[in-house]
């Protein structure tokens, strides 16, 4: 019951940022933080590079200097990929939670990530090495199918798709699909080679090609999601209320689903199934900004990008020169939070 106060709109002080005028300022501060984190992320790594060189690589590029080349071709695309993945997954989680009224909804828990990842693995198995945009399309198809299947599974029987049932259906679907993925990977050594670091969720070795070809999926989904802010806010009050206020509920749901699928498809195609960003970030954001999705979605996007950037940097630094995959780092933070949430919800 307590969770209602942070999850659904309620009276009184439900957000930390009290005045509406401060909301844009807060977003600006978050963006500045993000820029700082990104700059640090570009500088840190197996080889440490000072911020002066980093800025020179950006504005006055000299391809003769090895450090500047590292920054331009290795560090920078990786950091940008992390920004896209974090922003996409977190915003997708926020929208899913708003539209379904389910505090546990998120791409990872509902099996959307797993479905997208499986579709990509199948694609690589069947097609060999398809061009990059095909990865995005495959991931989107997988995400769509997974979403429909999980929702159908959870809606079976009495009581409809309750948060717990939906999550359980997502978990079971993920387990099933990951068994299929394992079977495929064992079957085919080539696919395993290409994809084994990708299936745990990782940003290692992401290049400009991936960012340029798959990033637009995320950006398009995010734009759509931001435009839908007012409708999602109304819908989060409940479908009946939204209908009463004159909203075409079906249309909002379909458009929201499209936004989620674009973002998750793009993010998974870039980094593999990265969990828990979409769960944790929107909850944290809601504490800050309340219940208005015109603000929740952009804050979540920035927050998700920040979380992924920080986690990826930490993963690269904690045991140099090896690195801890981003999926692992996030699960270490996200799983305890999930346990906490499960204990709190009805």
């Amino acid at each position, binding site marked *: 019951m307590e969770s209602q106060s942070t999850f659904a709109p309620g009276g009184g002080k439900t957000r930390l940022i009290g005045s509406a005028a401060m909301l844009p300022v807060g977003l600006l501060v978050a963006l500045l933080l993000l820029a700082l984190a990104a700059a640090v992320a570009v500088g840190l790594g197996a080889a440490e590079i000072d911020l002066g060189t980093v800025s020179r690589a950006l504005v006055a590029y000299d391809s003769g200097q090895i450090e500047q080349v590292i920054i331009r071709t290795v560090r920078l695309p990786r950091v940008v990929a992390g920004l896209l993945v974090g922003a996409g997954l977190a915003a997708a989680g926020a929208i899913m939670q708003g539209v379904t009224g389910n505090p546990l909804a998120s791409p990872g828990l509902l099996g959307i990530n797993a479905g997208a990842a499986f579709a990509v693995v199948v694609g690589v198995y069947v097609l060999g090495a398809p061009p990059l945009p095909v990865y995005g399309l495959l991931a989107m198809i997988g995400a769509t199918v997974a979403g429909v299947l999980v929702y159908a*599974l959870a809606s*079976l*029987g*009495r*009581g409809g798709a309750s948060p*717990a*049932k939906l*999550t*359980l*259906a997502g*978990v*079971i*679907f993920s*387990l*099933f699909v*990951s*068994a*299929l993925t*394992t*079977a495929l*990977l*064992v*079957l085919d050594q080539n696919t*395993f080679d290409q994809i*084994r670091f990708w299936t*745990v969720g990782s940003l290692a070795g992401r290049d400009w090609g991936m960012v340029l070809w798959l990033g637009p999926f995320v950006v398009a989904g995010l734009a759509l999601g931001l435009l839908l802010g007012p409708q999602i806010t109304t819908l989060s009050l409940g479908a009946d209320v939204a209908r009463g206020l004159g909203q075409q509920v079906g249309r909002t749901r379909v458009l929201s689903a499209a936004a989620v699928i674009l973002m998750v498809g793009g993010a998974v195609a870039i980094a593999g199934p990265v*969990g828990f960003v979409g769960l944790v970030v929107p909850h944290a954001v809601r504490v800050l900004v309340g219940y208005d999705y015109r603000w929740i979605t952009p804050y979540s996007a920035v927050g998700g990008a920040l979380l992924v950037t920080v986690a990826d940097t930490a993963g690269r630094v904690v*045991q140099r020169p*090896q*690195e*801890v*995959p981003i*999926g*692992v780092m996030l*699960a*270490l933070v*996200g*799983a*305890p939070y*999930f*346990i906490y949430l*499960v*204990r709190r919800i009805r």
Partner: protein
Amino acid sequence: MTTPTDPFPRPGWITLRSRRPAVSFRLDRRAMTIIPLLLVALLLALIISTSQGEYDIPMLDVMRAAVGLETGNPNHALVVRDFRLPRILVALLIGAALGVSGGIIQGVTRNDLADPGLLGVNAGAGVLVVGYLTLVAAPDTTLLPWLALAGGLGAAAIIYGLTRRGGSSPVRLILLGVGLASLGAALINYFITRLEVDSAQRAFVWLTGSVYGSTWADVRLLLVWAGLLIPAAMLMSRQLNAMALGDAAAVGLGVRVEPYRAVLLAAAAGLAAITVTAAGTIAFVGLVAPHLARRLVGPAHEALLPAAALTGSLLLVVADLAARTVIAPTELPIGVTTALIGAPFFAWLLYKRGK
């Protein structure tokens, strides 16, 4: 359902008593036919599975080679006794251990969705085992069972602690387990990133559960632990029956609920943990086997636990056969086949609960 103090056994039940030691068993009459039938089926599955593989051996020769008789082909003894039998027996014992473990957990938590894997017990065992193997330069493999045991018990204790306060619905218990399991999986993945590249694929297969390359040492290990823990659990069948009626009813029937719950959960966690040292984390067997057993012999644990052991064994022997032969010569990890059976089964259970 029957109460243990019922002085007039109904015709459907058979009572076995012994004054010293003071134990009594009440068996569903169905069990007297079903359990021998399961045993026969298991034996058949064992022989068939041993005869199949990259290189087929006639079943009669399998039996001869297994007991040490000449078959006229010196390869038979090698293939049967050194390659196939150990892994098939490991699968069989793991199935039995997981079946009983699941049966106990489902009884104690009164939750028909419970499974040692889903509750994070396997992951807990895996974390300590993999962590030890990667962090210690010269690992001592005789320590592994104890580490697995510690990890499994630790995970069980955490789940127990999390659910004690604030009560817990079946679905929520599973979700807590899922959280714990994904935390464990993340830690295991972290350790694996520290491994050499060669070991990584092996670790990957191990994580899904595999009996590839099992040895007689694994068989002995499982035999000792399962041989201790399964009978111990069966001796507590009466208490399990009472607990399955709910805590209030169990206390009313004179069962000291808390100590028995702790001991039974520990036994279940121990059984699951020991399978992890032998073959990695195999999910869903502990969920499916007790359900099948309940269908066959009813809900009384005196018959349910042995039946769950047998159905679990049967399941894993068949799953292993499928894993070896479906896409031969490539071999699937056995955990993949059990998940492919188990996940739809779980979905069906979820659907049935909703009705």
